[in-house]
């Protein structure tokens, strides 16, 4: 057998039982009593409705699963298709949703233990008290977390046997029950709204199928077995739920279920409806079997959920949505013990603070959010249709079914209990904040959707492009954009940019900006695309080669625009540049004749750090850096530092002063020490600033000047001190303007 076959050893039955085992514990053994009391004879309908809504999503999950059989399942698909902003929401919702669900299953487990051993009442000291059920739930949760922490592989195999046994018990219960069923026993039907609310209540019974996708990478022949398991488990549990609910309403006298909950002493543990019905219909043996079954079912649901959540943690850590430190594997147990430990802590916390309906409501609400996003992910994958997307299973009636699936999932949210709904949206909101404040600078993965939008930036509306760019991850990576217009200066600009990018371990983004006269419509220019493409391609190919000699990553783009400066600003924002390195001269980016109109465009501050090269041959061997302090010379200093590291340049720092030589020298000593240029030569001149710099520049190969105030570029094109200086010297001049501030809102939108 090949390694792949050995690694994928989950057969079709095992895959199916993950789904069925996770779902059935809640649906049959915890919720039917509440559902019948709420919806009467419509309880069965409420369950079927839940199954139908789940089925739409199950189809989408199957297609995505066969296309991408990866660890992490739903989170992975959403992150992959819709990008890490939604990925963060899906990941957190899935993780916490499973923790809420596990807490819910464990409270159910507690009820069974309490029923078996006749425990009731509360235990506590002083103001701190807790029901016996919750105490058992805590102990049970601790046990199952511990089992997963040390990793007993036997529990996985036990799961198959448990599920087969449960289905067998329920089959007998249903078959014998039909003999006693009579329509006149049915409680009265309730309204549609109540039925929908009941669906919202019991939807926690339909979370399991999506957990199958989280272990998709271990399933044999996933193209075939994954859809069978996902869809099969939904069909199977829906049928079982419907039948069991019909029996429970029709085979016992009216008011039987409601009667169970009447006359309960305060603190007394509520009876379990399915067990009471079984006992009533088929005697103590069936009662006992269902009691035992419920114990196994709730336990296996929790166990499977804890396991699935650790896969989601892994996938989130791999994409740096959370810290990868969470993925550390225990050296001896071979388990992701940190992830399981944290999930375990959350489960215990949720058991302590939440009641049964809040736990199930939060689990449902969070999963409905994921289901909605999952259908969205499918729509994006199909619409963009990337080359590598080749699902073995495809959703029929596309796009109707995934659209319905998404809409119905979001619509059902309206029927989830209010407090649980707030909690779910609160968590989703917190996940967005988490992305903005934590994950955005760390994750490197970009969604198929934003890749698609950005790659077609010329055709799509600006708002869509900047929205996609705004939430793009920057991966904490340093991006140096080089707008190229004049092929003559391509090599020097790319060389400079690559040297800087290399020092920061960053990427060079070479952008060919094609300016067309205002009279030419951009669409018209796009028709000449072939012609433009050819020039562009040649230019960008050379840029790529030049940058690759430095071993830095290169991206290339072509932008068609009327206004070249504006286009540079826009492109810097779109491609989330940290630094722009551009050329400037009589023939670069806008002629002097257009200076006035260009000036209007530039009344705003630069969108990131800018370096403007007046190119007279790039030679960084002797750098002159005049400074009087200030943020723009900070940028000049770090550029000088990087060039020094790359080219071993001689750096001379110059201060022109009338206030005394010693003071100026002391200032420069301190300044160079602060800016990592301690070995730079220090030079102090007196007199006219401009001529002093020009004189000093005679020995230099590169003059590095910072703007003394905001708006260097503006002053550049209008003609001012800096520009005169640029013309006065013979060497190349590199002008630096530092980006002043960048608000959070601007980064986001």
């Amino acid at each position, binding site marked *: 057998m090949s390694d792949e076959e050995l690694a994928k050893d989950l057969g079709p039955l095992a895959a199916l039982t993950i789904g069925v085992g996770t779902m059935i514990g809640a649906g049959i053994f915890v919720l039917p009593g509440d559902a019948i009391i709420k919806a009467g004879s419509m309880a069965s309908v409420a369950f079927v409705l839940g199954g139908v809504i789940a089925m739409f999503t199950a189809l989408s999950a199957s297609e995505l699963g066969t296309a991408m059989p990866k660890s992490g399942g739903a989170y992975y698909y959403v992150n992959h298709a819709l990008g890490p902003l939604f990925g963060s929401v899906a990941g957190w919702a899935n993780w916490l949703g499973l923790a809420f669900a596990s807490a819910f299953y464990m409270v159910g487990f507690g009820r069974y233990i309490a029923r078996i051993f006749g425990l009731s009442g509360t235990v506590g000291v002083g103001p701190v008290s807790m029901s016996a059920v919750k105490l058992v739930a805590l102990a049970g949760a601790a046990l199952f977390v511990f089992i997963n922490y040390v990793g007993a592989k036997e529990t996985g195999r036990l799961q198959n046997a448990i599920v087969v046994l449960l289905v067998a018990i329920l089959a007998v219960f249903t078959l014998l029950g039909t003999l006693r069923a009579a329509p006149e026993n049915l409680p009265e039907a309730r309204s549609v709204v109540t039925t929908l609310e009941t669906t919202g209540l019991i939807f926690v019974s339909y979370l399991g199928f999506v957990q199958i996708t989280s272990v998709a990478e271990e399933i044999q022949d996933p193209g075939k077995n994954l859809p069978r398991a996902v869809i099969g488990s939904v069909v199977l549990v829906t049928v079982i739920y419907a039948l069991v609910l019909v029996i429970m309403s029709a085979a016992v006298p009216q008011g039987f279920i409601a009667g169970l909950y009447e006359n309960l002493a305060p603190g007394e543990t509520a009876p379990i409806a399915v067990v009471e019905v079984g006992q009533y219909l088929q005697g103590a043996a069936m009662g006992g079997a269902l009691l035992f079954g419920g114990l196994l079912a709730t336990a296996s649901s929790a166990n499977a959920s804890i396991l699935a959540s650790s896969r989601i943690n892994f996938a989130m850590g791999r994409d740096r949505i959370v810290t990868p430190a969470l993925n550390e594997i225990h050296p*001896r147990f071979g388990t992701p013990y940190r992830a399981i430990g944290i999930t375990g802590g959350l489960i215990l916390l949720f058991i302590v603070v939440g009641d049964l309906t809040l736990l199930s409501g939060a689990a449902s609400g969070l999963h409905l959010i994921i289901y909605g996003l999952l259908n969205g992910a499918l729509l994006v994958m199909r619409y963009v249709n990337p080359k590598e997307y080749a699902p073995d299973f495809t959703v029929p009636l596309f796009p109707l079914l995934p659209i319905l699936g998404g809409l119905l999932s979001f619509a059902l949210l309206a029927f989830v209990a209010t407090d649980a709904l707030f909690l779910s949206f609160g968590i989703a909101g917190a996940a967005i904040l988490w992305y903005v404040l934590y994950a955005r600078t760390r994750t490197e993965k970009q969604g198929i959707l934003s890749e698609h939008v950005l790659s077609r930036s010329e055709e799509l509306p600006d708002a869509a492009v900047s929205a996609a760019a705004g939430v793009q991850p920057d991966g904490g990576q340093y991006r140096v954009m080089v707008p190229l217009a004049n092929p003559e200066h391509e090599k020097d600009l790319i060389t400079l940019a690559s040297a800087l990018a290399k020092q920061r371990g960053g990427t060079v983004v070479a952008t060919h900006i094609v300016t067309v006269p205002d009279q030419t419509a951009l669409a018209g220019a796009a028709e000449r695309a072939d012609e433009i493409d050819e020039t562009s391609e040649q230019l960008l190919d050379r840029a790529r080669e030049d940058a690759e000699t430095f071993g830095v990553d290169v991206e290339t783009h072509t932008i068609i625009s009327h206004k070249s400066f504006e286009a540079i600003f826009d492109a810097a924002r779109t491609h989330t540049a940290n630094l722009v390195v551009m050329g400037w001269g009589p023939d670069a980016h806008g002629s002097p004749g257009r200076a006035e109109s260009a000036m209007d465009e530039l009344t705003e501050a630069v969108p990131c750090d800018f370096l403007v090269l007046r190119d007279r041959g790039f030679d960084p061997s002797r750098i002159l850096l005049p400074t009087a302090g200030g943020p723009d010379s900070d940028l000049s200093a770090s550029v000088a530092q990087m060039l020094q590291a790359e080219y071993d340049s001689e750096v001379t720092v110059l201060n022109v002063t009338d206030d005394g030589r010693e003071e100026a020298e002391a200032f420069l000593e301190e300044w160079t020490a602060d800016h990592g240029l301690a070995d730079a030569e220090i030079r102090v001149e007196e007199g006219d600033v401009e001529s002093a710099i020009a004189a000093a520049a005679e020995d230099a190969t590169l003059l590095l000047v910072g703007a003394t105030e905001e708006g260097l570029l503006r002053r550049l094109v209008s003609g001012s001190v800096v520009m005169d200086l640029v013309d006065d010297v013979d060497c190349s001049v590199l002008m630096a303007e530092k980006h002043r501030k960048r608000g959070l809102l601007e980064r986001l939108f």
Partner: protein
Amino acid sequence: MADLLERVVVPVASEDDAETSARALARQSYGEAVFVHVVEKAGGAPDKAGVEQRELEAEEMFEAARAVLGDVETDIYYGTDVVETIFDAAEDVDASAVVVVPRGGNRLVQMVTGDVALRLVTRNDRPVVVLPADEDGEDSEDVT
């Protein structure tokens, strides 16, 4: 001794284990070494950790071994029984011996996880060499 260590398979279970084993091996004269990590499969049930996760982990172990020994051969194996899979690996690469370093741990932990080193020596079908783990190994060698 040189013949026995001519081509050894070194099973590793964690990054620390890989480093300790590599150091222990470095103190011996040996021919070639193949570092192997066995991804333990549940055999028809979900595993305790994802396969991809453990493959990434295995690469870290191999890195740790390379940091000590330079370029060594490495391979990932999959199996429900770690010990049997190690011997399968030894057979595949035609190893002269399997080299292990005891990983310690108390009885309780060994009971929960199954002590691989112990089972390796009790169920072996080719030579198993147990090397001392401690850094003072060289000294004790000088004494004997």
